[in-house]
């Protein structure tokens, strides 16, 4: 990776959704993956994101308890209101 191709950890975090959706440009995808090879923290973060997506994919509305559902709705209302 040349100096001009450097990617910071913060930039990687900002790009991770596009990376996982396969919408990064080839050049940016390359920079992203080069960073992951060199940075254990970002490799771990990418693993966490993949695991989270896999787990949430298997969730249905019925699989959430009424308490958890209410708690989530509360957070969303606060978030939107704030």
């Amino acid at each position, binding site marked *: 990776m*040349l100096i001009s191709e450097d990617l910071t950890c913060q930039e990687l975090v900002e790009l991770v959704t596009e990376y996982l959706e396969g919408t990064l440009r*080839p*050049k940016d995808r390359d920079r992203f993956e*080069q960073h*992951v*090879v060199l940075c254990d923290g970002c*490799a771990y973060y990418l*693993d966490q994101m993949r695991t989270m997506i896999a787990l949430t994919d298997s969730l249905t509305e019925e699989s959430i308890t009424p308490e958890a559902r209410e708690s989530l709705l509360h957070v969303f209302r606060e978030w939107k209101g704030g």
Partner: protein
Amino acid sequence: MVRAYKCLRPGRIGPFSGYRWPVGVWVEGGGNAALCLRGIHACRTEDLPYWLTQELWEIELDDDVRREHRKLVANRGRIERRIEAWTRASAAGFAEGCAARTEQRAMQARGEQAGRLAELAADAAANAAKGEAALLGFIAARAAELDSGTEGYADERRAQANWLASELGLEAA
């Protein structure tokens, strides 16, 4: 059919996909959501220094094999044989070579780059003993770039690939 190399984490895990590769089984690039959306990725010997991980495997690529920046991409691939010569010891040997060249550049440096090269040499020395091959390859290439520009960078990466080819018995870079 093209023969190439695949860098994997311990247990044949893809470093970006998290996919556990089966041995001797054709894997389709677009057919598995866990894999890269754009196909199966692998390396030529000259690409290896950029992607080194703990395990190195020989892979066969098939169906629309194409070259991209620092990698090969195909629609399907099959890992065949682990490169047994790529071990913690050989990774440490690679890392030590990179650290030694970085140190040499730092010692010979004059002018405004001397301080930065000294920092890189210190980073290299601190990490070489851990056998962090990809990181040391990066540091040595970065030092070469500071010292001699993009041509120096390319020369250093070529030297790394040649070392791997020679030490591991791979096809020449």
